[in-house]
């Protein structure tokens, strides 16, 4: 039973949660709103975590506003450091331990979590994933005054961190069990250009092996790789992948797949429960970026305030923050048939994915070729028109 005088409740205080709240407020200034977040609720930009060292910003300096400030500006109740323990969609209630909160509509905006098996060894406390502002603050404290960083993972986040931490004065070594950096996002020529760019600023790569164990050695660690090599470091960053948080939704009987399953109205399988951001799988797509999140926030705010609006995604290229070799990539759809046509000069790569008819379905640009993105964007089809 829906209690329409109960507040709309948003779980999660990241870009998804706060941007949805802002858009809701534009359309419904008096609608009771509540946000519940497991962290301190500070508003911050996750993309900025990847340039923190280069811009010499502490976690406090990256915070755009406190939870109290956001509660005031948005006229909403924000419960920080609070975990939702269960969702009862039929009763329109969530449990915060023993406390029960009723909602009229519920939005799951709790994001994705770092993937990572526990690595064998006794140095778990020197292995950090950096997936939110609090993580970033903890890492900065642990790495203060240190020199060598071992980064596990050579995808987007691993490479951005390698670049940023090198800019911050660290020596970075990257280990990943793949043939190329950005194994899922970039075609090989573009990937190799980025690798060369990063090697040019001093990043060392071990592509192929896994990290088997990490053991304490003095104040730092020694990592043993599956090929027998060892890497010594002062601190370790785990950047091996993100997966949408699913457990609470699954426990509530809400349909999950790779992400929490949603249609183009961002509705889940439970009435009055919606989802957006890194935890959402919208018509089969989990997109861990800001452009789709913003499109979803605007559409969902309209839907929740009485104007059902399907989200659509236009052209949404991804800008990778590796100044050593900048990249803009618009991946082709997973089932797209075509081939890569590559032009390159040194680390400047223009890779175009075209079908037999010559239609552009995706691209990857590095270095100076990034300037060509405007022309290519005009040729691309919308991701979800």
């Amino acid at each position, binding site marked *: 039973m829906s209690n329409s005088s109960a507040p709309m409740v948003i779980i999660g205080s990241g870009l998804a949660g706060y941007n949805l709240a802002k858009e809701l407020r534009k359309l419904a200034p008096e609608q009771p709103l509540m946000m519940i977040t497991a962290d301190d609720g500070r508003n911050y*930009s996750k993309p900025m975590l990847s340039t923190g060292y280069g811009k010499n910003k502490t976690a406090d300096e990256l915070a755009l506003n406190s939870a109290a400030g956001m509660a005031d500006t948005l006229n909403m109740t924000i419960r920080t450091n609070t975990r939702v323990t269960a969702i009862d969609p039929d009763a329109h209630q969530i449990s915060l331990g023993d406390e029960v909160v009723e909602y009229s509509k519920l939005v799951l905006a709790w994001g994705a979590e770092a993937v990572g098996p526990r690595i064998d060894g006794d140095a778990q406390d020197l292995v950090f994933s950096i997936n939110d502002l609090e993580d970033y603050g903890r890492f900065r404290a642990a790495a203060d005054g240190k020199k060598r960083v071992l980064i596990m993972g050579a995808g987007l986040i691993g490479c951005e961190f390698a670049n940023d931490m090198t800019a911050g004065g660290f020596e970075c070594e990257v280990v990943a069990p793949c043939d190329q950096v950005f194994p899922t996002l970039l075609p090989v020529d573009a990937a190799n250009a980025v690798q060369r760019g990063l090697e040019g600023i001093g990043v060392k790569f071990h592509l192929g092996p896994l990290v088997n164990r990490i053991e304490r050695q003095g104040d730092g660690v020694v990592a043993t790789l599956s090929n027998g090599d060892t890497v010594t470091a002062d601190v370790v960053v785990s950047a091996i992948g993100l997966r949408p948080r699913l457990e609470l939704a699954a426990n509530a009987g809400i349909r999950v797949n790779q992400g929490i399953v949603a249609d183009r109205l961002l509705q889940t399988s439970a009435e009055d429960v919606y989802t957006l951001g890194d935890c959402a799988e919208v018509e089969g797509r989990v997109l861990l970026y*800001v452009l789709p*999140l913003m499109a979803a926030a605007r559409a969902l705010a309209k839907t929740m305030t009485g104007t059902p609006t399907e989200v659509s995604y236009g052209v949404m290229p991804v*800008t990778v923050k590796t100044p050593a070799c900048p990249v803009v990539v618009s991946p082709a759809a997973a089932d797209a048939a075509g081939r890569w046509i590559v032009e390159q000069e040194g680390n400047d790569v223009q890779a175009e994915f075209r079908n037999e008819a010559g239609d552009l379905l995706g691209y990857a640009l590095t270095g100076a070729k990034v300037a060509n993105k405007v022309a290519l*964007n005009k040729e691309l089809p919308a991701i979800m028109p």
Partner: protein
Amino acid sequence: MKKWQCVVCGWIYDEAEGAPEEGIPPGTAWDDVPDDFICPDCGVGKEDFEMVEI
């Protein structure tokens, strides 16, 4: 001519350059950029930009 930076993704709007691919001619002051302008890289609105001190 001033520069304005997106606080979410760092994209810079340079008044001297405008954003022609978004329909904003060079020389357009930030105040004159339409209210429904969104950051081309990340989609946030004008309210999430701040002026960059040179």
